[in-house]
């Protein structure tokens, strides 16, 4: 395996007490991603960086022997001319501590998300009785455009066209249309028949406060009444309170999104 040295170095670092990491890969995913080039490794003695280069950003995962090892991140990534983003996911205070270490190494807090779960959703009360339907293969580009219009690609993990296509094929995207235009959607992932992760939930700004969001959520909750629902929500807006009204509760997991400051 061409990435043997990299894996050995990751293991050497992981064996050390007090090592730091933001990576949460299954071994098979790590091996496949390195093999097919989705992830690129940068290996230095006390720091391994795994680079996931996207069209709009560079997302970085790391295994660091100690906090000072992270001082090298900027130098090791100096060839990349895109925003450099590190996600730190975990429970506080550990996640906050790791985020602070990165802030001391030249990063700034760009955004913060919390995970919310719900195993007994309250049905939305405000509905417009719009027709909710599954997206079809011709909706791919409209869905992508709506995602980009609503979310900042630096933190939204916006899916590729092929991921959207797969989700359409698995009936994981529902839409509401005005004439033919998509004006709202839910994009979810069926982790299992009783475990659903909402990835995106959008109503076009022009069509908000009409009950369309309620229709979309009602459709999903009604389709899978026994499921536990999970979603990530930004702490920078009032969406969290809206989800709390539907009985979503913060489960303690946070995601600090850190951006390397420009020189």
């Amino acid at each position: 395996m061409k990435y043997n040295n990299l894996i050995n170095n990751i293991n050497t670092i992981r064996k050390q007490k007090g090592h730091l990491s933001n990576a949460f890969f299954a071994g098979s995913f790590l091996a496949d991603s390195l093999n097919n080039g989705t992830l690129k490794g940068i290996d230095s003695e006390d720091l391994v960086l795994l680079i996931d280069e996207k069209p709009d950003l560079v997302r970085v995962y790391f295994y660091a022997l100690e906090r000072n090892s992270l001082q090298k991140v900027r130098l090791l990534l100096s060839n990349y001319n895109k925003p450099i983003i590190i996600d730190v996911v975990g429970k506080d205070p550990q996640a906050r501590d790791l985020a602070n270490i990165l802030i001391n190494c030249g990063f700034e807090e760009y955004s913060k998300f919390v995970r919310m779960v719900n195993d007994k959703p309250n049905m939305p009360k405000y509905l417009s009785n719009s027709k909710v339907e599954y997206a079809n293969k011709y909706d791919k580009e409209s869905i992508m455009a709506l995602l980009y219009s609503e979310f900042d690609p630096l933190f939204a993990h916006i899916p590729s066209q092929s991921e959207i296509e797969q989700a359409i094929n698995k009936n994981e995207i529902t839409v509401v249309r005005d004439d033919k235009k998509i004006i709202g959607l839910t994009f979810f992932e069926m982790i299992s028949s009783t475990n659903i992760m909402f990835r995106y939930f959008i109503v076009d700004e022009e069509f908000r406060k009409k009950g369309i969001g309620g229709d979309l959520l009602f459709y999903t909750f009604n389709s899978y009444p026994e499921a536990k629902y999970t979603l990530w929500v930004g702490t920078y807006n009032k969406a969290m309170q809206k989800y709390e009204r539907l009985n979503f509760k913060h489960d303690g997991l946070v995601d600090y999104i850190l951006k390397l400051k420009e020189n």
Partner: protein
Amino acid sequence: MEKIYEMLIELHPEYDFKGNNGLIEEGILDSFDLVSLVTMLEEGFDVFIDALDILPENFASVDAIAKIIKKNGGAI
């Protein structure tokens, strides 16, 4: 085995883990849980789990977890 159950219950007190062979497939343990569990297992059983052994099938059940601990020299 009891120690493994205790660790799983610490992560998810709401689940009954006994006899469940679909901890990953059913989404009871997600990738974030897996990272925490690996750390707990390594510290609790004084073993090291290779990065490439952190596979869904090795954490699908308590028996599978026990097997990976034993493979790495841990005493169950």
